[in-house]
């Protein structure tokens, strides 16, 4: 009982501190032009820096989805082009906005938490505060803005890469002829699915950057604690992405 009470009080403490941290982000910035420069830097670091892993993951996942779908759809009443429909909808609805964002929680989230955590333990954040700079806003807000702006483009790129990966794999393996796959891609397309995917991406981008920044910002100790903060950032971001994936799907699609 005592264990659960302590765990509950720790959880409320973390939630409360997270909201205080978030409130601090929106204090009037010192100089907009400095924030603008920071946002440009973060766009490059978060967006361009993630392109490689996103494309590689997407191509192979698209390929696997296509081959597995064709392996499972053996009923002669189901046309072969259904594989294209399944691949397209899986990629657009779930794979690109959720799985890729989980991958990015690992890549971008750990990088943000360790960067800010290292700044904390080497007193760089104290140096900012002594100068009178709102350190949480200066370090975190540009990351959140950049992620919300750039990650939807990364996810769209992932959708293209996944669909192309599926096309190539289906054609090379001979399981789904090219014409059938393309017919499947075009059949029963619901444009709202893209909107839904973008809504999810924006929410997940906010979760990854804010949760990772929070864990980095409140790091105490040394190198070991920076590593722990980084791990926590990835774990909590991933769990929240999955929880919000369910909530958003229930709210918007159900």
């Amino acid at each position, binding site marked *: 009982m005592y264990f659960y009470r302590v765990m509950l009080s720790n959880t409320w403490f973390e939630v409360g501190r997270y909201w205080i941290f978030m409130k601090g982000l929106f*204090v009037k910035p*010192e*100089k907009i032009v*400095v924030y603008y420069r920071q946002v440009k830097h973060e766009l490059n670091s978060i967006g361009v820096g993630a392109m490689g892993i996103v494309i590689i993951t997407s191509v192979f996942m698209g390929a696997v989805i296509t081959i597995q779908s064709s392996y499972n759809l053996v009923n002669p009443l189901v046309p072969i082009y259904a594989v294209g429909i399944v691949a397209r909808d899986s990629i657009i609805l779930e794979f690109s906005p959720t799985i890729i964002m989980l991958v990015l929680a690992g890549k971008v989230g750990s990088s943000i938490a360790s960067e800010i955590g*290292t*700044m904390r333990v*080497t*007193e*760089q954040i*104290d*140096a900012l*505060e*002594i*100068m*009178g*700079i*709102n350190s949480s806003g200066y370090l975190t807000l540009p990351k959140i803005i950049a992620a919300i702006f750039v990650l939807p483009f990364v996810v769209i790129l992932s959708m293209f890469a996944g669909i192309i990966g599926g096309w190539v794999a289906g054609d090379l393996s001979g399981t789904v002829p090219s014409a059938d796959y393309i017919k499947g891609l075009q059949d029963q397309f619901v444009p709202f699915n893209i909107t839904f995917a973008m809504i999810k991406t924006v929410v997940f981008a906010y979760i990854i950057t804010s949760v990772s920044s929070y864990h980095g910002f409140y790091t105490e100790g040394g190198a070991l604690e920076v590593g722990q903060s980084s791990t926590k950032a990835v774990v909590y971001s991933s769990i929240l992405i999955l929880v919000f994936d369910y909530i958003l799907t229930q709210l918007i699609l159900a």
Partner: protein
Amino acid sequence: MIEVKNISKHFDKKQVLENISCTFEKGKINLIIGQSGSGKTVLMKCAIGLFEVDKGAVFFDGRNFSELSFIERKPIRQEIGMVFQGGALFDSLTVEQNVMFPLNMFTNQTLKQKLDRVNFCLQRVNLSKVNKLFPSEISGGMKKRVAIARAISMNPKYLFCDEPNSGLDPQTSIVIDNLIQEITEEFQTTTIINTHDMNSVTEIGEKIVFIYQGKKWWEGTYNDLKSADNQELNDFVFATKVMKNLKASL
């Protein structure tokens, strides 16, 4: 002048500072000395507002810093320069960008004006040809000098240095001490140095505050220190053979 009045601070159940009052004078080098864990750094961090005090207040030229909000503290903070123990330079910025950082944040100067100021500050700390290097590419002593250059870039009225000589060889320590002394005299700053380097005490200490177990144990000038009969102070200051010999020769 900075006045610390009856400040106390605790962490969890541990009382770290207890009812400390002292005055740090303008244009002088004020040293806070004491054993490791005595509360020196906490006292300094309370003075600059990185820790909120439980009780008491800190006054910057009569302005009660402790009762101000984050926003209200900004004008005073811009009058403060701080040199951290490890330098606390921003890793992702070059030396030039580090020194220029406060100017970018708080002034509307042109790039040329800012570069002139950066070069002046770097020259003042005897650094040249390092503008484009990153902190990871320079030595520990150079990092401290860059940190001093960044601290003086906004012409501070108050200069805080947290163990500026830690991790430096004796010769470089003397260079840093002399530099801080020159800057204090030149810009008439209220300089507060946190140290347990006895060489700094003998070379540049003008006003000294000795902290012992979270309490102010002794306060006075360097001349007072030589003749002080405070047991804990003498045990701390004259702990090494060199200092014992110095005491014997006085």
